[in-house]
């Protein structure tokens, strides 16, 4: 599976990037031009955004992610929307500048950038965030991602350890940084905010995506990745976009499955795992990039609580609400019978169990018993 970063590969990455940048710029310019032409015709310009709400989200098994529906809302330039229009256009201009100067900006950066826009400046970051989401949705229709618009998240990504070499080329100089994820000692490789230009060398059999730092730490320090030949990823709660994108690219490029190992509670199931696998509900317009359709759920399952006699806590009201919501409204869970019965089982048990509950049987029980036993039967993982 070894793969070299060749000149040809670099050229390809460069071409890809150039093509994407060109597309980004042309998308922006087309949108602006449409508005400009409409103005010249003395018409009222309008922008069409995908409707971003659960009612406009569907789950397609073949595609494997939550997909935004066809509903669009049109925002016409009127006296009332003139401010938002001006701000949207100015932010599009900023994005174009960023692409052309090969730079990027975080949400906070954009907010401060807007302070140069005189009357169009934002008073609060929440305002600029909203406009950014609008632009992202606007261009998602053209398959242009937020990262391609050069708006990057402030949040930092997850951590990686195991049998993996990340090839991180500097596109300008062509110099390639080889990052060996086995060589971080007791530490780990941190996933960068942009992962599109990375490529991978690995012989691992699977990726283990872990919810908590505690379990990740244990598996990493005991070199679990060595004994079971895998790559460990610490999601640290709900995986960020770049973590999702990293796992997605890794699993697709290396053609290896992804197993999720999270707490057995409605949050671990419906927020962390669901978001990893099919993307998030309120940012459905970008899920196509930021999901890992070939992830499956290793544990902890409700059945594990019984099988391993795990210590539990009672479900809180918010847990119950979340679980019921998943059963009733989440298009993903609704389409998976085995998930439906698993969540119903959890609800009827009325309890939750954390990953680390396995420590009851010994601190390294998870390494020595639980995971090996589970990994014998990946076919039985929840979808």
């Amino acid at each position: 599976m070894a793969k070299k970063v060749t000149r040809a590969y670099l050229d390809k990455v460069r071409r890809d990037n150039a093509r994407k940048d060109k597309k980004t710029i042309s998308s922006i310019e087309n949108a602006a031009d449409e508005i400009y032409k409409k103005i010249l015709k003395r018409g009222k310009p309008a922008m069409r955004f995908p409707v971003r709400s659960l009612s406009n989200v569907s789950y397609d098994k073949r595609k494997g992610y939550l997909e935004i529906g066809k509903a669009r809302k049109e925002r016409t330039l009127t006296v009332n929307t003139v401010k938002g229009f001006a701000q949207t256009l100015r932010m599009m201009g900023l994005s174009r500048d960023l692409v052309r100067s090969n730079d990027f900006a975080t949400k906070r950066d954009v907010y401060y950038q807007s302070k140069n826009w005189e009357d169009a400046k934002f008073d609060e970051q929440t305002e600029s965030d909203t406009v950014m989401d609008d632009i992202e949705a606007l261009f998602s229709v053209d398959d242009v991602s937020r990262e391609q618009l050069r708006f990057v998240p402030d949040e930092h990504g997850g951590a990686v350890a195991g049998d993996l070499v990340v090839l991180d080329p500097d596109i300008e100089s062509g110099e390639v940084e080889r990052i060996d994820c086995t060589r971080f000692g007791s530490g780990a490789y941190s996933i960068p905010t942009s992962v599109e230009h990375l490529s991978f060398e690995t012989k691992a059999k699977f990726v283990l995506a872990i919810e908590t730092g505690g379990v990740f730490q244990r598996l990493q320090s005991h070199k679990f990745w060595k004994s079971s030949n895998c790559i460990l990823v610490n999601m640290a709660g709900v995986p960020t976009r770049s973590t999702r994108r990293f796992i997605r690219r890794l699993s697709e490029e290396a053609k290896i499955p992804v197993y999720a190992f999270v707490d057995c509670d409605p949050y671990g199931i419906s927020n962390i795992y669901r978001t990893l696998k099919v993307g998030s509900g309120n940012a459905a317009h970008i899920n196509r990039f930021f999901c890992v359709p070939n992830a499956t759920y290793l544990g902890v399952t409700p059945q594990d609580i019984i099988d391993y006699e795990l210590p539990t806590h009672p479900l809180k009201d918010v847990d119950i609400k979340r679980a019921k919501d998943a059963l009733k409204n989440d298009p993903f869970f609704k389409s998976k019978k085995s998930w439906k019965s698993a969540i119903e089982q959890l609800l009827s048990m009325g309890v939750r169990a954390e990953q680390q509950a396995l420590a009851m049987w010994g601190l390294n029980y998870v390494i020595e018993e639980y995971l090996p036993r589970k990994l014998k039967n990946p076919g039985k993982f929840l979808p």
Partner: protein
Amino acid sequence: MPPTKSPSRKKTAKKAAKKTAKKKVAGKAAKKKTSRSPSKKASKNGRSSKDSHKQADLFSGSPASDKKKSTSKKKVTSKKTPAKAKDSNITKADILATKQKDISVSEFFAKNRHLLGFDSPARALLTTVREAIDNSLDACEEAEITPEIYLEVTAISEDQHKILIRDNGPGIVKEQLPKIFGRLLYGSKFHARKQTRGQQGIGISAAGMYGTLTTGKPMRVISRISRRKPAIEVTLAIDMAKNQPVIKKEREVEVDWSHGTEVHIELEGTYKKGKHSIDAFLEQVSLANPHVELTYINPVDEEPIIWNRVTKHLPEPPLEILPHPHGVELGILMQMMKVTNSRTVSGFLCSEFCRVTPNVVKKVREETVALGKDVDTDRQPRRLSSADVKILHKAIENTKMMAPPTNCLSPIGEELMSKTLTRNFDPELVITVTRQPAVYRGNPFQVEAGIAYGGELPGDDLASIFRFANRVPLQYEQGACAITQSIVASPWRNYEVQQARGALPTGPLAVLVHIASVWVPFTSESKKAVAGDDEILQEMRLAIMEAGRKLATHLRKKRRLADAERKKDYIKKYIPQIGIALQDILDLSDQQRTGAESKLADVLERSRKM
């Protein structure tokens, strides 16, 4: 300053005084009355003093405690010499009787000043002014003179003030002067079946007495009845034991006015600003009395405050009407039947109530039959048993009859309310509503509402509420008043005015509500708040809502204009930003940019107007 009184009026006044005294003691009195029959007999000839006696027993602390002491003493003595007590055959009641003596109204008042509005120094000052203004207005109106009142409050020390009030009323003849100002319960205003201003307290004489009590200074009254006659100055105090005026000095004086009355009272009292101040009271008086010219000098501000009258015409004098049978309470009915001169129940009903004819009486009798007892309406009213009167009362309630006449009321009127509101607040908008008269429980009443909006009125505060009953400002117990309740219950948010749940509206608002009625239902004897009968609340709400809707129309129009202005601003502000962005993204020339900007501005301007 009070109106001149004819001899016949005097009688009614005294009668009325009795009635009120009786009414006050109400149920509680009943028990005590029976146990003390000897004393009652003894003072039967005493007329007004008899009433005061009863009041004293009930209200004043000291006589009661004296009594207790005496009983306990007696017990002690009877133990020591039991034989003596048996011999003399003297009952406890006899012994008590020797301790029970007449207490004059004045004396009663001296010990119970809190009952009459003199409970705190700040209130004492206000009560005095209220009584004085009331008297002046009534005097002028009764003599059909447009009132002109001059009021001066001067500080002697922080807690002693001098009050000078002068009106241009008819003046008072020399002989009456001491009686009017030197006796309590002497007047013409009690218990007429018409819309009256008075019946608030015990009168200006009480204020004078309070002054004498607290400062030792007698009240001074100057009155002149005609240009051709000299003004008379009387200095007088009240002999509290006898309820009689004591003239300290009487002389002719030179004054520069041709008729009217001037009263000087020195009293213990503190001057304060605020909701319960004299200033606030006069503000309210001026709102409800558009025909009054009022000059006021307070001890704090240098400039006098002057409310110029907005009309020369006196308000239509309210007409006196007979009570309507549907409004009469059982106790009152019994009382009326006891004192009536009519020979038959039928005659009594026809002559002492409005809207009752022999035909109506027949129907009432039929109703009594329906209630299970045929009450003979041809019997003497006095002969009816109380059970019969009860049935009669119920039967009257059940009988349909014409509503009382409503032409007896004298509202302020929309136009004049509007003028006084404008004069006092200089607002951006004034709306006034005078409802048609309505009837509740046999009493005709009429509600008026006025709203002043904007101008100098403070925008962040709760609305100022001005409550009036028969043109008299209500200053206390705002929360308990039906007027406040009806304002709170009105949907101000529908009228573009902020309102927190269950609270008064917030905004640059002054809301005036006036209820005129021959009998305003108050929540208590102190007449500080109007009681919330359903019909009254409903009328008040309808008046406020009618005014509110008009306010809403105005505010919506104003907001539309402001919106349009804001949008215009918007266009000016943000279109250049669109231009800049388009120029940036599409590499437009400056000319292309400005072209697009002006076209866009055009399009938006046009759409705005549509």
